[in-house]
């Protein structure tokens, strides 16, 4: 696409390229509502603003305050737990389900159609659904009456985060299993045939063939899961609003509550900057890891 500049022919083509007017609307929208806010959040983190009046310059005060608050440290720790446990739960389930869904059996095709259903619900719908299902009055626990079921699922600070992680997984595992299903279907049938002839069993085939063949899908899905859950807000907010007693107040919720409930937009912006910084670092890190593994695999393939 990039022509050498020397030949006269390319000069002619250069004049024939579309004018910048074509890109202008996209640039304006993107600049005004995405890039400007990104810069704006950094600026606002040095300001004091209650969300209604005029922001005023505040220097580093906001930052000192936010970084010293236990609330922030707690939110960072909870976010770490949320991201890690979510991944440990979602990744294996999604992978196994994807492999399962890729099978050609009729009943698996049928199940796959139903597995998709959570993706049709908005996060608010899912949140309200599970709030009711986990309610101590008319939910799962009173319905089944099993003693070992907790009466308070979302109301118990000791398990609320785990319950939230399960519900978030319920929502997003279907999407990731679709990715894995597509990935498995790209694997050539011949290598399975060869392995079967060589006497490799199902487990052996899964670990020695399927997993290595799925490496790109694993990288893609993992990146989306990790970075996605780092910034996830909707469902957690609907389920618990950060409670009980701050037990699920992960960073994005900490930001929202600080800004829109406590009217401390400066502090909320500082939290948002932390969120961006952690997010970008994580993405870059994952890119590096996936980049190096790609090079290795290229060598192996050659």
């Amino acid at each position, binding site marked *: 696409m990039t022509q050498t500049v020397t030949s006269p022919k390319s000069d002619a083509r250069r004049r*024939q390229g579309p004018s910048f007017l074509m890109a202008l609307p996209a640039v304006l929208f993107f600049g005004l509502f995405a890039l400007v*806010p*990104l810069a704006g959040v950094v600026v606002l983190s040095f300001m004091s603003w209650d969300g209604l009046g005029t922001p005023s310059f505040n220097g580093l005060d906001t930052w000192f305050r936010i970084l010293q608050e236990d609330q922030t440290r707690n939110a960072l720790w909870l976010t770490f737990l949320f991201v890690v446990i979510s991944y440990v739960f979602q990744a294996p389930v999604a992978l196994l389900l994807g492999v399962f869904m890729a099978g050609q059996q009729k009943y698996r095709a049928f199940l796959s159609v139903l597995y998709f259903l959570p*993706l049709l619900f908005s996060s608010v719908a899912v949140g309200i659904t599970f709030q009711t299902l986990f309610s101590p009055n008319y939910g799962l626990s009173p319905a089944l009456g099993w003693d070992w079921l907790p009466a308070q699922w979302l109301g118990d600070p000791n398990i609320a985060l785990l319950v939230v992680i399960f519900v978030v997984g319920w929502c997003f595992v279907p999407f990731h299993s679709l*990715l894995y299903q597509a990935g498995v279907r790209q694997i050539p049938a011949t290598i399975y045939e060869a392995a079967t002839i060589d006497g490799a069993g199902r487990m052996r085939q899964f670990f020695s063939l399927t997993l290595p063949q799925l490496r790109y899908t694993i990288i893609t899905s993992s990146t989306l899961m990790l970075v*996605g859950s780092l910034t996830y807000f909707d469902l957690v907010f609907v389920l618990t609003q950060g409670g009980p007693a701050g037990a699920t107040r992960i960073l*994005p919720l900490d*930001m929202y509550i600080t800004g829109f409930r406590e009217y401390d937009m400066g502090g909320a912006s500082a939290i948002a900057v932390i969120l961006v910084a952690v997010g970008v670092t994580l993405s870059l890190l994952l890119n590096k890891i996936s980049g190096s593994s790609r090079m290795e695999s290229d060598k192996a393939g050659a």
Partner: protein
Amino acid sequence: MSTTVDDTSRQGSGRATSGAGSGRPAAAAPKAQGPNHKARKPTDRPNILGGLAGWAWLAVIILPIYFIVITAFRSRQDLANSNPLVPSSEPTLQNFVKVLENDFMHFFFNSVIVTVAVVAAVLAVSLMASYYIVRSTTFGGRRLFSLILLGIAIPVQATIIPVYYLIRELGLYDTLWALILPQIAFAIPLSVLIIVNFVRDIPAELFESMRVDGAGEWKILLNLVLPMAIPAMMTVGIYQALQVWNGFLFPLILTQSREVRVLPLSLWEYQGQFAVDVPATLAAVVLSALPLLAAYIIGRRYIVAGLTAGFSK
């Protein structure tokens, strides 16, 4: 060249952030299942353990949905007096009537307006930008593409406060415009990425021969770029429509009054308004899922492809 393109798109997808674990599809080419579609034949010995796990997961998926559907057909008294997991012996439609009497259709149409406006604008704007990025012979095209790819890494959640400030300053707070404009902006990076990968595949000769025939850039856009990019546009359209339709954060922060309420926010408000009338709230939840359920039944293939496009590469 093509390797570079692949790399860019893959890394781009790697940086995708917002939209939570739902992720975003990157790259283009919702490739058909390919020649290996029938690759995995069931082995001779049926996988009993796998089958059991599969049905168990179905139970996990279906139970909450079953629960909200049967509860939506219950009366309040019925919910208090019977086992919540057994369907009511006297099913009622009164909850749905109550939801419909409380402006449900109004909120539904607000959602339709916002979704259609965002998707239409994103498609138009992204197609134009993609044409520029692919065919521009100046340095700007490449630079613009990198800038827009960078945009995929911006978490929407983290920019919401400045967006709120901006919308207030523009006097758009609590209008449908407040929902439409920022969502167009945040949908652009991924849409451009997917469409660019399609437009790249159009042979340069086609552009040149149209130029020779005296076609201007608008004519080329409409008669060459648009028809060739239709599959990518469908992917982008479906994906972004789902995102906007179910989106909660922008409505929560940028609107407040009943007139401009969209469906996801309305569920949230119903829950507060109906309070102890749980069956009515769940009736609203069930109603809100019906449009997408209908879409899924009619166009399952398209919706699945729209969600995962590009990853299946």
